[in-house]
């Protein structure tokens, strides 16, 4: 009786299979069809941030229609800002995974230029007529230490106090409300607490959970409203030991200790902002918070937390300086850009896609959908843009008192040190003085003695 599976048969089968496989894999590569190129586009998309995805989908259609043979490969990363930055940086470490065009936070531009991730665009920008339409201040967003431009801004933003008029009126505070100093904020918050103990009167983000939001929508509004600052631009040094830093932490401590803000546990939750926009404001459980000019994008039609009638309920105010000193108010600006990968195999094509994504039509749509402050002068004058929501003018006016983060390469780590200080204070782990001292020590360690300044 012959074996059903003789060793010889098995061997023969294996050999033939191997031969087929070898033939399949060792085919000489067919010559590339002319112009069959693909571009990898990496950007951020979340359930509450789809405006950029829309722009990219439109740009892909336009671009593929006018460039036959080119495939635009959209690769949205679903992650919060912090994780998005991490994933992007990891992808950029190798030429095989690096994107051709990507969405980049302004404060990371310099650091990523140093890392060799971004392509210098000066040569390309010269030939792009639309570049003249960008405001001078906006052009600076993509400038690196060598004076070259490496990224083109999508839009910018400011920060302000967003308040619920109903909650304030219940506490007998007249609206429109415009506090003139930190003390006036505390007075109003205490009045709200007294009127309704269940209300969160005045929230400011703190701790590592909310990441960059903690400093941009919170601590810096305090610090830049004192007579101190984070960084001395002229001396190019980081400021340590400043009274303003301790005062700002003390203000946060007061806010959290008197239960005028959210509970520390809630503050440390990375998703607390979703509750701010999605639950507390619409349900009238929150008096005020410091948030970005893009706030209406969450509530308008098609936003993540649609809220019909938010225009009537909500008001916006400038964040005051500590004691009302000039210029009377403070705001922070950031914003995001598009950049071309330094390792891109088709830089010309990649830049061409970038210009499509940022043309007037797409920029206008993006600025409206995402409540961005436009950086193209031809968009700012569009009636459609000005009528996007009732707050456009108010938040655009804050550009007069706004500050930008020091976009140095070591900034991201300094930012983390600030977040750690706020976390230590609101959790009661350290006093404002001790937390400030620890921050100073951390900064010295990070940047070295020769880059700090006692003020």
């Amino acid at each position, binding site marked *: 009786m012959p074996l059903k599976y003789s060793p010889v048969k098995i061997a023969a089968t294996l050999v033939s299979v191997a031969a087929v496989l070898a033939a399949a894999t060792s085919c000489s590569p067919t010559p590339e069809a002319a112009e069959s190129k693909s571009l990898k586009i990496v950007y951020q998309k979340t359930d509450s941030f789809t405006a950029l995805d829309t722009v990219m989908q439109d740009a892909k259609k336009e671009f593929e229609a006018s460039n036959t043979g080119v495939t635009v490969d959209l690769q949205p990363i679903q992650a919060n800002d*912090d994780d998005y930055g*991490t994933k992007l*940086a*990891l992808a950029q*470490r190798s030429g095989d995974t690096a994107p051709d065009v990507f969405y980049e936070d302004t404060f*990371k531009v310099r*650091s*990523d230029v*140093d*890392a*060799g*991730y971004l392509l210098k665009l000066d040569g390309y920008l010269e030939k792009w007529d639309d570049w003249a339409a960008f405001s001078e201040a906006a052009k600076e967003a993509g400038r690196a230490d060598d004076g070259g431009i490496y990224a083109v801004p999508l839009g910018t933003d400011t920060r302000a106090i967003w308040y619920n008029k109903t909650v304030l009126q219940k506490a007998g505070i007249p609206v429109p409300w415009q506090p003139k100093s930190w003390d006036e904020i505390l007075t109003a918050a205490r009045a709200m607490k007294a009127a309704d103990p269940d209300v969160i009167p005045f929230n400011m983000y703190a*701790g*590592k*959970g909310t990441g960059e939001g903690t400093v941009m929508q919170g601590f810096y509004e305090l610090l830049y409203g004192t007579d101190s600052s984070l960084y001395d631009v002229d001396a190019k040094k980081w400021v340590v030991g400043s009274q303003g830093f301790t005062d700002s932490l003390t203000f946060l401590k007061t806010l959290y200790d008197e239960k005028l803000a959210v*509970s*520390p*546990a809630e503050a*440390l939750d*990375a998703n607390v902002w979703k509750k701010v926009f999605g639950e507390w404001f619409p349900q009238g459980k929150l008096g005020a918070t410091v948030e970005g000019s893009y706030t209406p994008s969450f509530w308008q039609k098609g936003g993540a937390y649609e809220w019909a009638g938010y225009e009537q309920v909500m008001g916006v105010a400038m964040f005051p300086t500590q004691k009302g000193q000039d210029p009377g108010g403070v705001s922070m600006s950031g914003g995001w850009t598009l950049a071309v990968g330094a390792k891109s195999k088709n830089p010309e094509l990649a830049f061409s896609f970038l210009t499509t994504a940022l043309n007037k039509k797409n920029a206008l749509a993006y600025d409206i959908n995402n409540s961005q402050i436009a950086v193209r002068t031809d968009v700012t004058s569009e009636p459609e843009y000005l009528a996007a929501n009732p707050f456009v003018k108010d938040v655009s006016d804050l550009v007069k008192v706004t500050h930008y983060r020091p976009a140095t*390469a*070591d900034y*991201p*780590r300094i930012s*983390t040190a600030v977040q750690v200080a706020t*976390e*230590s204070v609101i*959790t009661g*782990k350290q006093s404002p003085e001790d937390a400030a001292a*620890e921050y100073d020590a951390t900064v010295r*360690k990070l940047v070295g003695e020769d880059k700090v300044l006692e003020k």
Partner: protein
Amino acid sequence: MRIRRFLRLLPVVPSVLLLLVFLLAPVAWSFYASFTDAALSGKAARDPQWVGADNYVRMFSDDSFPLAAWLTVVFVAASAVLGQNVLGLLIALLMTRSRRAVASWVGTAVVAAWVLPEIVAAFAAYAYFNRDGTLNQVLGAFGSAGPDWLYSFPLVAIVLANTWRGTAFSMLVYRAALADVPRDVTEAALMDGARGWQRLAFITLPLIRSSIATNLMLITLQTLAVFTLIWVMTAGGPANASTTLPVLAYQEAFKFGDIGYGTAVASVLILLGMVFGAVYVRLLREQKS
């Protein structure tokens, strides 16, 4: 003769190669990176510099590292050596004496936590310990307002969660070991008038010694590496109160982009695992002789 011996080793070659490439190479790279200032961004990303033992020096002058090392030891001791190990043994002992139906019910309930993917178990634990979670709802039903566990007692919460999740493994190991204890020995002890706890301490435990050591080694190494559970439940917070070494390594390398320092922390973690492993291996050896 030599050739034959060599040929015998031949089938092992592919697996050894795979181990070298996929396991040892990353470990070696990570150890190498810990002596550089490699980073995700900035100049060091383009051109990492050799910085010698700087990362290790910084580690011991940094407040967060000693705290993380201590928390890791506490976490392992409380949730693995005490929690999973003792609870697993206890359940296994009780199961040998209980009725079959009861034993299989209990066994299923315990194993259920273990077969869940880690991320699912982590979210289940998060939902349980959350301020408005199951535990506080139950406490509320009895009229006592529970604290915010994840904020006020983060370490307790992750220790309990890891104990819940891992006890099944120890239970299974000890059930198998107890089944191998010869009946006649325990019966002889019974005839001599040994009480329950005496039989356990002087007969059963010494007989399953090697299982205990093996189990301890496995769960220690598993618990040292627990990341997902802690990351989902507390993300290492509040103010680093539940940041164990794996969480610290992740934060430093990927959140702050400091690959050099992150890999240094990871290297210490590997060394810690080796020390534990070596201790248990010695214990096992002593028993054999």
